[in-house]
């Protein structure tokens, strides 16, 4: 319809432009701007095909005024203007093709995401039910643990899928987001809104927080959980940067919303929100930052608490710790006091450090943002030396005891077997 209006406008202006040069110039410029705006806003190949006709019509209608327009449009010429319009048309065609082809991928991702969301909802129900059962001691711990593992895997899968979805939205523009046009950036915003991306990120982070609240995490699981959390956070930061870039460009800042305003994309959340296409604003991201921070905090708290329990459950008392540095200080302090006080460290070294920490907690502790490989190796070495020292002392004690027993036995047997001395007269 817009094209018909444009053609009508061209006809009308042409009638007048046969008389006034200024009107010829201004009507050409108006028609040019109108076509350029429509090209920039085009979202389908059909629209672009129609606009190609409009460019041809514009060129044909003003061709007789070419000499005049070449001077009047200074510093550009009539030919340059038409070429510029055709170049814009070509670029937009390329962009529309990319967006349309990506749109198919997005719809595939959407379907998979919806399916996984449904499965997650089902697993979440299972989780609640299992947790209740555990409290009533009706199910075995192993069974519950298996279910939890499934739930955890599902969360990870959803996380991966979500970022695959956002990557596919940004894919056509990834090379240089700053050079994309206003319309292209608005298209990204529309797709982000349609895919409900921010709400989904929020939900995943929130589910992970809930998961930590209701689950007794096994020591060996922490490493992968930390890894997942860090990757999620880093991906979110990257996505946030891109979203800020498009939001700034499309004059739709992602302002902070009042507390509790974040809408969940959970059940039914995979559907786009009503009016999302018309609304040129993105959802607030502050809540996502908060929930990701909460996830990290809870994970770390759970980790250090679990580690502390390894010591306290075996009646080894360490100074309280809440991070890698304080943990290392507590252990060194314990080792020093054991060395000076001659404390029995068998349980500490063998039962706790070797059997539990080294076997189950080591992968997580070796993460750079927890303790780090080098720091763990230093601790391990200090504890091994403590063990060697105690072992040497015991060994000497055993040798001494054996020697005493041996000497005693020798004295006893030699005394008994000695024949009585015969006195010679």
């Amino acid at each position, binding site marked *: 319809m817009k094209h018909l209006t444009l053609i009508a406008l061209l006809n009308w202006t042409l009638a007048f432009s046969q008389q006034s040069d200024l009107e010829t*110039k201004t009507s050409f410029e108006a028609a040019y701007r109108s076509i350029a705006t429509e090209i920039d806003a085009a979202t389908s190949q059909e629209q672009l095909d129609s606009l190609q006709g409009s460019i041809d019509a514009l060129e044909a209608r003003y061709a007789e005024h070419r000499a005049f327009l070449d001077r009047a449009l200074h510093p550009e010429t009539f030919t340059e203007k038409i070429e510029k319009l055709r170049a814009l048309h070509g670029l937009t065609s390329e962009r529309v093709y990319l967006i349309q082809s990506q749109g198919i991928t997005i719809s595939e991702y959407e379907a998979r995401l919806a399916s996984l969301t449904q499965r997650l909802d089902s697993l979440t129900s299972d989780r609640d039910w299992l947790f209740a059962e555990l409290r009533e001691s009706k199910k075995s711990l192993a069974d519950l643990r298996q279910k939890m593992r499934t739930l955890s895997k599902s969360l990870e899968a959803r996380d991966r899928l979500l970022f695959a979805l956002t990557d596919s939205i940004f894919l056509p523009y990834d090379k240089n987001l700053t050079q994309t046009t206003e319309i292209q950036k608005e298209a990204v915003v529309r797709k982000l809104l349609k895919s409900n991306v921010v709400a989904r990120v929020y939900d995943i982070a929130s589910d992970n927080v809930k998961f930590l609240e209701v689950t007794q995490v096994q020591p060996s699981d922490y490493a992968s959980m930390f890894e997942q959390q860090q990757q999620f956070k880093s991906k979110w930061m990257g996505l946030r940067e891109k979203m800020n870039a498009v939001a700034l460009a499309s004059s739709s800042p992602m302002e902070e919303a009042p507390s509790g305003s974040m809408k969940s994309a959970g059940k039914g959340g995979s559907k786009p929100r009503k009016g999302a296409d018309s609304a040129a604003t993105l959802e607030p991201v502050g809540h996502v930052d908060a929930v990701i921070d909460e996830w990290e905090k809870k994970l770390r708290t759970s980790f250090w608490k679990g580690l502390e329990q390894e010591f306290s459950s075996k009646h080894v008392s360490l100074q309280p710790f809440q991070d890698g540095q304080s943990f290392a200080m507590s252990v060194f302090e314990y080792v020093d006091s054991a060395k000076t006080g001659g404390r029995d460290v068998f349980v500490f070294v063998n039962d706790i450090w070797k059997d539990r920490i080294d076997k189950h907690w080591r992968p997580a502790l070796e993460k750079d943002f927890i303790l780090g490989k080098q720091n763990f190796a230093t601790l391990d070495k200090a504890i091994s030396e403590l063990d060697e020292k105690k072992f040497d002392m015991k060994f000497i004690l055993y040798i001494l005891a054996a020697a005493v027993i041996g000497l005693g036995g020798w004295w006893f047997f030699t005394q008994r077997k000695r024949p009585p001395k015969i006195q010679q007269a």
Partner: protein
Amino acid sequence: MIKASRDIFLLLIRSTPAFFISCASLTLENVNFGWPVESALTVSEKNTIDDVRYGLTCNVASLAVEEFQDTSALKGKILRVLRNPQGYYFVTGAGFNYVYVFGPGEGTLSLHKSISMGNTEKDEPVRLADPALNQRPPNVELLDGKLRHLLSPDGIIENEDGGSK
């Protein structure tokens, strides 16, 4: 003596053209001052017009007095200005009886001719409704609805019927 006088005389004769050439002002020829298209300029509250593209700024209060006998009559109105190839400025606007032709001076535009759009013989004044000026070298075309005149700095050359005045 006579020979010396004759030599001096010949020298004077030969150096005369060089003397006159060095005293004459430098002139560049075949200059085209014409603007490709007229400028539609809105008169400001200070009674000035400002054409950014061609660098023309002037006060039009005296023009308002000349045409409407009111210094503020042109405020907010649009003036049509076009410079022809010879360098004359053609100025008119809606409600005008005349097209004013100005020649440039030192910091001034001096009226060269005011061309009446009415029939002077029958004393019928015609007010222009929505005029437009087109560059039609060496002349300027005035359009106003069905009205069409071809103008030179000195007057109407050809009217809408193709006749000359």
